[in-house]
């Protein structure tokens, strides 16, 4: 984490605590931690939780979809605070040091994601506005709720959701075991993209 801060990296780190299976995300922009997410927590609270984890699997992805800064603190104080809280919670029995399983930077997405990306680029071209494509189970519950509206009105299964949150990028969500997230430029040809993806 400190290296990311030092090297002023822009990246998204997905972590899974080995013991509990809890999952979280850290968003860095030019070395600054913008936001953290774990379950329903966001911001500093989520960062404290993540920094208190012992053994984690993590993957680092280039780029950061967020621009809004929800964490008004440097990294070091956040880590120290997380450690302090952890020490308070478990005064003894500190587990042995752990080996992080680090996947390479710019992790290659699954075949399905690559094929989807190719299809979009082939059918729409470079103007498709596609920025990033990944799977993220933090969206799963939200997708489940959105799909219920369609069920109520007998529209069948949800194929995709296009979301404009006013962020730097828009999101296209595709349901699955894990939700597939496509981040796109808000100026993208939205209707074309929707048509190609829902084919």
């Amino acid at each position, binding site marked *: 984490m400190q290296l990311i801060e030092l090297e002023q990296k822009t990246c998204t780190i997905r972590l899974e605590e080995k013991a509990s299976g809890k999952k979280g995300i850290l968003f860095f922009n030019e070395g600054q931690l913008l936001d953290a997410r774990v379950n329903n927590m966001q911001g500093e609270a989520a960062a404290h939780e993540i920094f208190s984890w012992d053994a984690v699997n993590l993957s680092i992805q280039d780029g950061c979809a967020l621009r809004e800064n929800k964490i008004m603190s440097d990294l070091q104080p956040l880590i120290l605070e997380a450690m302090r809280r952890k020490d308070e919670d478990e005064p003894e029995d500190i587990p042995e040091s752990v080996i992080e399983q680090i996947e390479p930077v710019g992790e290659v997405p699954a075949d399905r994601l690559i094929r989807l990306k190719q299809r979009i680029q082939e059918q729409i071209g470079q103007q498709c506005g596609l920025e990033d494509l990944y799977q993220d189970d933090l969206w799963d519950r939200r997708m489940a*709720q959105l799909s*219920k*509206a369609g069920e*109520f*009105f007998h529209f069948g299964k949800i*194929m995709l959701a296009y979301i*404009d949150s006013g962020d730097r990028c828009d999101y296209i969500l595709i349901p699955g075991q894990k939700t597939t997230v496509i981040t796109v430029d808000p100026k993208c040809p939205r209707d074309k993209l929707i048509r190609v993806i829902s084919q």
Partner: protein
Amino acid sequence: MMNMSDLFYDILNTKGVKGILLFSFSGDIIFKEFISPVDEKPENLDWRFFIKSLEGMRETDLVFEKGRIYIRRSEIGYLVVLMALFVPTAMVRLNCDIVLPALRQQKSGKKLGRLLKIGKQK
């Protein structure tokens, strides 16, 4: 002030649009109108979790196997447009752009009404 049915007239008369619902931020139905009768009253469903899942979204387009739902955040809640798959969504979006300022006026009108009521009580 226009009534809601007049306000949504253009959207409801777009070919393929099946209905409109306006939800408050707490999930209550403020207004609803359907082109053809629906099997079940929307009031029978608890929409709170659905509305909660829209938090932070300005505009949402949901594509289903047999229809689409276009959702737009307004100052008084979420406008939900039910439509067929073939509907030109650009047209619906444009009509929503026109309607949203009027919804804002409805909100300020209500506030004014409330103030007048308080004035009368005093």
